[in-house]
C-alpha cells in the first residue's frame, strides 16, 4: 500500500511536476524511461515516488529512449498500466517503436515535452517532435499550461485504456514554457483521481496463461492493409470516447475540454489557428485588439490526432481570413499544420483565406505584439478580399524578408 502524499487544493506546479503527479495518482505500474531535457523531471519524479513509497510500481531506467518505449510495450502487453516521457531526439529515437505500440493496440501514455530536433542541437521548445509523431498511430493531445498537462494526462489513461479504443496516447506540452514554468494548479484528491481514471482491465494479457497470445506477427501484402486500416478506424472512432471522457472530467472538476478549443470566435473576422502555449499568447492579443475594432479569434487544436477535420471546419467557416501557425520547420513545403487546416477549410462553402506563419523554432519567443501584428495582417487580407503577402511567412526570424508563394485568388 502506497504512502499518503499530501496535496493542497491549490498547488504551484510546473508542467513536468503536474504530469508526474498524474502518473502517481493513476497508479502507473511500470515506467521504463530514459532522461532527456526538458522532460526528465517527469520520470525522475516517478522514480522518487517509487523510492519513497508513494507508489507501488517498477521504475526501469533503461539505456535509450528506444529501449524505454520497447520496455513499455513489453510491460503493456503484460497487462498493466504503463507510461513514460520524452522529448525531441529521444522521441526521434523512439519513433520506430511508437508505430509498434500503436500497431499492437497497447494503451501506453507518453508525455512529450515538445522540443526542437537537431541539427543544430537545441534544447528549447518547438513542435518538431510532435509533428514527427503525427502518423505513428497514437492519439495526440496538447496541453497549453501545467493544469492542462495534469488534467489531460489523467484523461489519457481513461481514453487509451477504453476497450473500444485501445490505443496509445501522447500528451504534449511545450518545453520550458509549460514544463518549467510554475503555475497555479488544482489537483484532484488521490481518491477522486483514482476513481476517475479507474483500474486498467487487460486485453490480450501476456500474463494470462489460460490464453497464450502472440504479439507482433508478420503480415505481408495479403493482410497488412486491413490491419493498418482497422487501426486507422480505431483512431477515428476514438473521437466520441475522447468527448465522453472530457465531459466526465468537466463534471468532476468544472474544467471543460474540447477537441477543438475556440476563443472569441463568436463574431470573429480573422483567426489564428495554433497549438501549445502560443494559444494563450494569441488570446491576450485578441482581447487587446478589441479596442482597435478588430474582431480576432483563436482556434486551438487540443486533439492533434485524431485530427478534428469536421470541428476545425465548423469553427472557422464564418471567418474571412485565417493564419495557421506552424512551430516546426516545414523543410521544403507549406507547414504541415497549415496543410491540414487548409484541407478542412477547402471543403467549406465559404473557403476563408488561409496564410501560414512559421514561428518559434528552437524556443524563439512569440510575443503578444507579434500575435497582434499577424491578426492585423489577416484583417488587411480580409479587407482586400485576397492574400496581400506571400502565403508562407516567418515570424520572429532575423534577416531580410523571406516568404513563399503568392495567392492566385487576388
Amino acid at each position, binding site marked *: 500500500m502506497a504512502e499518503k502524499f499530501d496535496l493542497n487544493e491549490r498547488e504551484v506546479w510546473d508542467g513536468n511536476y503536474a504530469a508526474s503527479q498524474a502518473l502517481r495518482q493513476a497508479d502507473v505500474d511500470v515506467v521504463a524511461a530514459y532522461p532527456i531535457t526538458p522532460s526528465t523531471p517527469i520520470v525522475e519524479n516517478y522514480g522518487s515516488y517509487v523510492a519513497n513509497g508513494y507508489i507501488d510500481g517498477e521504475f526501469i531506467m533503461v539505456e535509450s529512449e528506444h529501449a524505454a518505449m520497447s520496455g513499455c510495450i513489453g510491460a503493456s502487453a503484460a497487462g498493466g498500466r504503463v507510461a513514460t516521457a520524452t522529448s525531441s531526439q529521444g522521441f526521434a529515437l523512439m519513433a520506430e517503436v511508437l508505430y509498434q505500440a500503436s500497431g499492437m493496440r497497447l494503451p501506453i501514455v507518453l508525455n512529450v515535452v515538445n522540443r526542437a530536433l537537431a541539427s543544430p542541437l537545441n534544447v528549447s521548445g518547438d513542435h518538431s517532435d510532435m509533428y514527427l509523431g503525427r502518423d505513428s498511430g497514437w492519439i495526440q493531445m496538447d496541453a497549453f499550461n501545467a493544469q492542462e498537462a495534469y488534467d489531460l494526462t489523467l484523461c489519457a489513461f481513461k481514453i487509451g485504456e477504453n476497450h473500444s479504443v485501445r490505443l496509445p496516447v501522447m500528451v504534449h506540452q511545450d518545453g520550458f514554457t509549460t514544463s518549467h514554468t510554475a503555475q497555479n494548479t488544482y489537483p484532484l484528491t488521490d481518491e477522486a483521481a483514482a476513481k476517475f481514471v479507474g483500474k486498467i482491465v487487460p486485453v490480450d494479457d501476456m500474463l494470462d496463461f489460460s*490464453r*497464450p497470445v*502472440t504479439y507482433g*506477427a508478420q503480415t505481408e501484402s495479403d493482410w497488412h492493409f486491413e490491419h493498418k486500416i482497422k487501426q486507422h478506424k480505431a483512431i477515428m472512432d476514438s473521437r466520441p470516447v475522447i468527448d465522453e471522457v472530457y465531459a466526465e472530467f468537466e463534471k468532476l472538476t468544472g474544467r471543460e475540454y474540447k477537441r477543438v478549443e475556440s476563443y472569441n470566435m463568436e463574431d470573429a473576422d480573422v483567426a489564428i489557428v495554433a497549438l501549445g502555449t502560443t494559444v494563450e499568447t494569441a488570446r491576450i492579443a485578441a482581447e487587446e485588439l478589441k479596442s482597435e475594432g478588430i474582431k480576432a479569434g483563436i482556434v486551438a487544436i487540443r486533439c492533434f490526432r485524431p485530427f478534428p477535420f469536421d470541428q476545425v471546419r465548423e469553427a472557422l467557416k464564418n471567418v474571412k481570413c485565417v493564419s495557421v501557425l506552424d512551430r516546426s520547420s516545414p523543410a521544403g513545403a507549406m507547414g504541415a499544420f497549415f496543410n491540414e487546416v487548409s484541407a478542412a477549410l477547402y471543403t467549406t462553402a465559404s473557403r476563408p483565406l488561409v496564410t501560414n506563419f512559421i514561428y518559434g523554432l528552437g524556443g524563439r519567443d512569440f510575443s503578444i505584439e507579434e500575435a497582434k501584428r499577424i491578426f492585423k495582417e489577416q484583417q488587411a487580407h480580409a479587407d482586400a478580399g485576397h492574400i496581400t503577402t506571400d502565403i508562407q511567412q516567418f515570424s520572429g526570424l532575423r534577416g531580410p524578408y523571406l516568404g513563399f508563394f503568392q495567392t492566385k485568388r487576388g
Partner: protein
Amino acid sequence: MQDLKLRANDNRGLSQLEAGFDLLGWHEITQGSILHSFDGDATNIVNLKAEERTYSGYNSYTATVASWRVDKPVFNIDVCIDCQNCWVWCPDSSIISRDKQMLGIDYDHCKGCGVCVEVCPTNPKSLLMFAEQRELGEALSQWPEKKKKEEKN
C-alpha cells in the same frame, strides 16, 4: 502409424499455409494482429498431448507444410529401439512419440529434411528417405538388411 487419431480438431490439415487463411476483411481480423494459440482455457496445456489440445485456427499446428517435401522419411517400427534421437532433433516437431515410444511421422508438418534418418542409430536404420509419392507399404517392403560391421561406413 498414420491412422493414429492425433487430430486435436477437425480443422487439422485443412488449412494450407501457402494458400493462406480465408482472406478476411478489416472488420473481421484480430485487433492489433494478435493471435491466440488455443480456443478456450489453455492453463494446463503443458500436460496435454497434441491430440488432447484445443488448438485455435490460428495455431500453425492446424496448418500443413507437406507440399515442401520432395522426399519423405519412412518409419520402420520393427527396427526402432525408441532411442528418441529423431524426436529431440526433429526441427519440425514432426516425430510422434508417446510414452517413450516412437509411433510415427507427422506428415502434415514434416518438411523432409532428413535429419531424423541421419541421427537414427539402428542397423539398418529405422527411418529412411523415399520419394514423396512412394507408397509406405512398398517402401517398407524394400527395407535393407542389417549391414555387417565391415560394411558400415
